[in-house]
């Protein structure tokens, strides 16, 4: 991994941040406040999950980071340089998939990539064909490369969009919902591709509303809701911030609930043959013994690890729904 030059690192407090925003705000012309005072820090080498329900401002943030729209206020730095001012220097090192792929339907998949590569000022025309072939190979599209993009399926288009982001070695990959439209096999392939790229040292910034997708591949995550950042940090810490729940599986749910309350467990909930609760402070072995002593027939007993979804619900106090 490379060191940021000292002069660049000095300019913002988060050393080694590949993306750093300060009070980044976007109000669309219609008056919609899409992103509100965002302070985002993406560490170098991370696989960063950018989470949020539909309409929470993920794509708007990504568009500002890529210099496509101007922020209403606040600043954004990508690879240590201000955006959109340094777009010419920054963007060749960034591969992006923004709000789905966009292709020239009347060109073949290969010609689409040749065109996008020609638009990159740092792309060497002499290696263009080789690099395009390699990118197609990497996303498994070699066989369909000669087909008109109009005739591609949604998943094939998504793959071609990814290939365009991989035309050059990149320091940062920005992927806005990259598994959209992919079959389970395709999703797995993308996840392993992301891990592979991360292992090579590429920082991956991945937006998604699929919580388990983020949990599976990301080292870090940030959660957005209604344009505001709710939390960010390492995935392990985010999930650890929420305690797991004690789960007892038993046919005697009423008795079990009573005993758990006696043992100091809070928020006891009965669903079918499961009783779940906030685990009490005491040793859980004693809780289990108490259940057995009371004649509760225990089929299963354990603590379920908190998922990112639990963490999200705990943070927002609400579900993962679209805000109006």
């Amino acid at each position: 991994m490379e060191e940021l030059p000292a002069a660049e690192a000095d300019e913002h407090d988060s050393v080694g941040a590949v993306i750093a925003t300060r009070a980044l705000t976007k109000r669309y012309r219609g008056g919609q406040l899409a992103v509100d005072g965002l302070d985002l820090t993406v560490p170098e080498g991370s696989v960063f999950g950018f989470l949020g329900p539909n309409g929470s401002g993920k794509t708007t943030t990504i568009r500002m980071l890529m210099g496509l729209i101007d922020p209403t206020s606040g600043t954004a730095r990508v690879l240590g340089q201000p955006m959109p001012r340094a777009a010419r220097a920054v963007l060749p090192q960034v591969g992006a998939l923004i709000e789905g792929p966009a292709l020239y339907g009347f060109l073949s998949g290969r010609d689409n990539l040749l065109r996008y590569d020609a638009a990159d000022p740092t792309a060497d025309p002499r290696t263009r064909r080789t690099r395009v072939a390699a990118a197609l190979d990497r996303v498994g599209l070699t066989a369909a490369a000669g087909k008109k993009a109009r005739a591609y399926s949604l998943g094939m288009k998504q793959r071609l969009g990814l290939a365009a982001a991989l035309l050059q070695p990149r320091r940062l990959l920005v992927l806005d919902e990259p598994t959209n439209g992919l079959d389970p096999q395709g999703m797995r392939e993308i996840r392993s591709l992301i891990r592979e790229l991360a292992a090579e040292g590429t920082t991956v910034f991945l937006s998604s509303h699929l919580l388990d997708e983020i949990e599976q591949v990301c080292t870090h995550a940030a959660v957005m809701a209604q344009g505001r950042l709710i939390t960010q940090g390492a995935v392990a810490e985010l999930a650890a911030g929420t305690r797991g729940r004690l789960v007892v599986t038993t046919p005697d749910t009423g008795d079990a609930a009573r005993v758990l309350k006696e043992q100091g467990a809070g928020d006891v909930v009965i669903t079918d043959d499961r009783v779940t609760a906030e685990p009490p402070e005491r040793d859980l072995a004693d809780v289990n013994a108490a259940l057995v002593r009371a004649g509760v027939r225990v089929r299963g007993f354990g603590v379920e690890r908190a998922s990112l979804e639990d963490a999200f619900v705990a943070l927002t106090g609400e579900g993962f729904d679209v805000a109006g």
Partner: protein
Amino acid sequence: MSQAEVVRRTGATEGARKTSPLWTFGLLRSELLTTFRRWRTLALLAVLAAVPILVGIAVKIETSDGAGGPGGGGGGPAFISQITNNGLFLVFTALAATLPFFLPMAIGVIAGDAIAGEANAGTLRYLLVAPAGRSRLLLTKYATTMAFCLVATLVVAVSALTVGALLFPLGDLTTISGTRISFAEGLLRALLIALVVAASLIGVAALGLFVSTLTNSGIAAMATTVGLLITVQILDQIPQLHAIQPYFFSHYWLSFADLMRDPVYWDELVKNLGIQALYAGAFGSAAWARFMAKDITA
């Protein structure tokens, strides 16, 4: 070694890459290829090529009927009556017939779609994060539109020359001023006229490009540009608007006929080119200002 490994080896560790010096031409080449490989572009050119064929055949049928001189009098200058004597006049007639509407309409489609069409398809955002650069992309688009102006005009001229040679005799010709010039000089003047006609379209091209930066719908931009074209053409016919007509981009279009005078009468030709430069400057700057500040949300 797999091809993926090749990519990884070619400089995964080097920082900012150098801009390759020939890049601008690469972008222009890609733009030209993309434009001229579209079916729509080819269809427009086919329509333009068909006009001289239809005019040529119509004149041929009319004269073989023994009706003598043609009636009506096509587009402006009375070139059409000379076609039966000399096929080269079909070039002038065809250009005069397509310049008021067919040619600028084709340019309006290409120019109007230039930015708005890419925005519509979403490809604009990927060109900009490539990063093509907004000024450079706009310049490339304008250069491509101008290239289309030239190609479209030449398609009309070449088609007319071919049809003219096939259906009518060729030879020395009489200028509007009544003097005789050789066929070779006539050809040279035809080429010059084609170039002037192509240059006459620069203003429409700039106007179309500006409209194209205003919207994210390619169809809307094309329709607006063609609508403006028709409006201006109509206004140019209304006598009460005499005072402002010299500023219409189409006002001096038919001045290209002056190249067939002997000596050439330059006054209106120069005025025409001046107007085109004015439109290119004004709407080019407006397009640039608009495109630089535009939020790319499509």
